[in-house]
């Protein structure tokens, strides 16, 4: 069987198509940053432990450092560059801005993409490790601080801006971030 260590792939990112040759070893993170100049997605640990590289794959939050670019072909990729609708910020972005949900800002794109995914998961009824009653009949648990902290535990902030991050996620949820998350970048912000 003939083998090849590279392929020409087409990635669907933020509603656009990008065709590029990639060495199979290329992660989605490196393809975004080094090949497509989409540098909003950050490289932190490169081991799936910090969440800085979080993007949405078919609407689900994913760490792009453990996702091979070649294996992402055919999937809808949304990065931090694609969550706003033109100048209208996503409700999660707006909440992070209003509440200073960051200090240095390096982890922020990952935090925002992760929060969008987390709010969608919550709206769909997914319980978490701190949910008392996980029976489907119980419905989604209230989005308490404890729930937000557990659901966002895959995103580290070395500045320790967690208090404001939790507040921002809570406000985005209250402001309809859930709707925005469920429909990608189509949420209209008044």
């Amino acid at each position, binding site marked *: 069987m003939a083998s090849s260590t590279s392929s020409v792939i087409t990635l669907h990112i933020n509603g656009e198509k990008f065709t590029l040759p990639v060495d199979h070893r290329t992660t989605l993170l490196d393809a975004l940053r080094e090949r497509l100049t989409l540098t909003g997605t950050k490289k932190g640990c490169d081991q799936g432990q910090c969440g800085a590289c979080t993007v949405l794959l078919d609407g689900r939050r994913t760490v792009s450092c453990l996702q*091979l670019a070649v294996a992402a072909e055919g999937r809808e990729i949304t990065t931090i560059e694609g969550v706003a609708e033109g100048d209208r910020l996503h409700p999660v972005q707006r909440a992070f801005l209003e509440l200073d949900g960051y200090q240095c800002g390096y982890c922020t794109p990952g935090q925002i993409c992760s929060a969008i995914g987390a709010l969608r998961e919550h709206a769909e009824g997914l319980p978490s490790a701190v949910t008392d009653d996980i029976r489907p009949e119980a419905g989604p648990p209230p989005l308490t601080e404890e729930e937000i902290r557990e659901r966002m535990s895959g995103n580290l902030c070395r500045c320790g801006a967690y208090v404001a991050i939790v507040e921002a996620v809570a406000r985005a949820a209250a402001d309809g971030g859930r709707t925005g998350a469920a429909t990608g970048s189509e949420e209209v912000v008044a």
Partner: protein
Amino acid sequence: MREFDYRRATDVAGAVALLGADPDTRYLGGGTNLVDLMKTGVERPARLVDIRELPLDRIEPAPDGGLRIGATVTNADLAAHPEVRRRYPALAQAVLAGASGQLRNMATVGGNLLQRTRCGYFADVTRPCNKRIPGSGCPAVEGEHHNHAILGASEHCVAVHPSDMAVPLAAFDAVVHYETADGPGELPLADFYPPVGETPHLETSLPAGALITGVVLPPAPVAARSRYRKVRERASYAFAIGSLAAALDIRDGAVHEARLALGAVASRPWRARTAEEVLTGAPAAPETYAAAAEAELAAARPLPHNGYKVTLMRNLVVAVLTELAEEAAR
């Protein structure tokens, strides 16, 4: 990272044929463990066969009334499934207790069963490790082993299996189904992970080239009252230092049926059959739970720096069984 060929499989037979029995080829599921290990050089495959598009992503009723979980179902979808949450709650809780939201969206059931130990010596290619290089030695026995095995280990390897999901699967008698070039097969989870002995590099009993196609949970009414409790060194997003999947059915003040499996204490999820035997028919009381835990842990052989796990697991068993009994009484 070594360069590699990449193929995308569209059906099970094609995936199995692509892999053949080539020891240099790996199936790629979510990749959360494999890609990480490829970056550090622990894994050096020459070809990946991507199985994410195989039609194995469903959770369906099994003919015997149980549940069949496809191999490419993600952790997130497994934990979200209404029947899992209703009938096997400890399984949903275990999956939710593992990794992060991002990783649960990527990781798959088949890959979860096959994930590798998080022993630091296994992960460090500059150090000896009998799992990575058979016969090279095990630095953990006299080194850093505070989170290593207290049950079923050998002088050749004291690493623990890191999966949360596999712990309730062991308690609920799950059966792993697989496909090979010679046809399908199945392995009860109890036989899936062989004893460590002198061969810690042989981590599963799967035939060479086998592709896990799914996991079948037999019907287990006792599992409807079950719980998974995980103890770790921080509140979230960390591997267990000890965990327990437990199910309890109490009738007329006595234990009618109990299921127990311990996590992060052995090279495999540790089904606590000795404890179950002590529990069955005995009064549903904390003294019974303590006696059951102590009977199971009599076989523990802790290392100098992980003796705390014996106490931790004893207390965990008593606490969780007490909670389940209180819940049943409400």
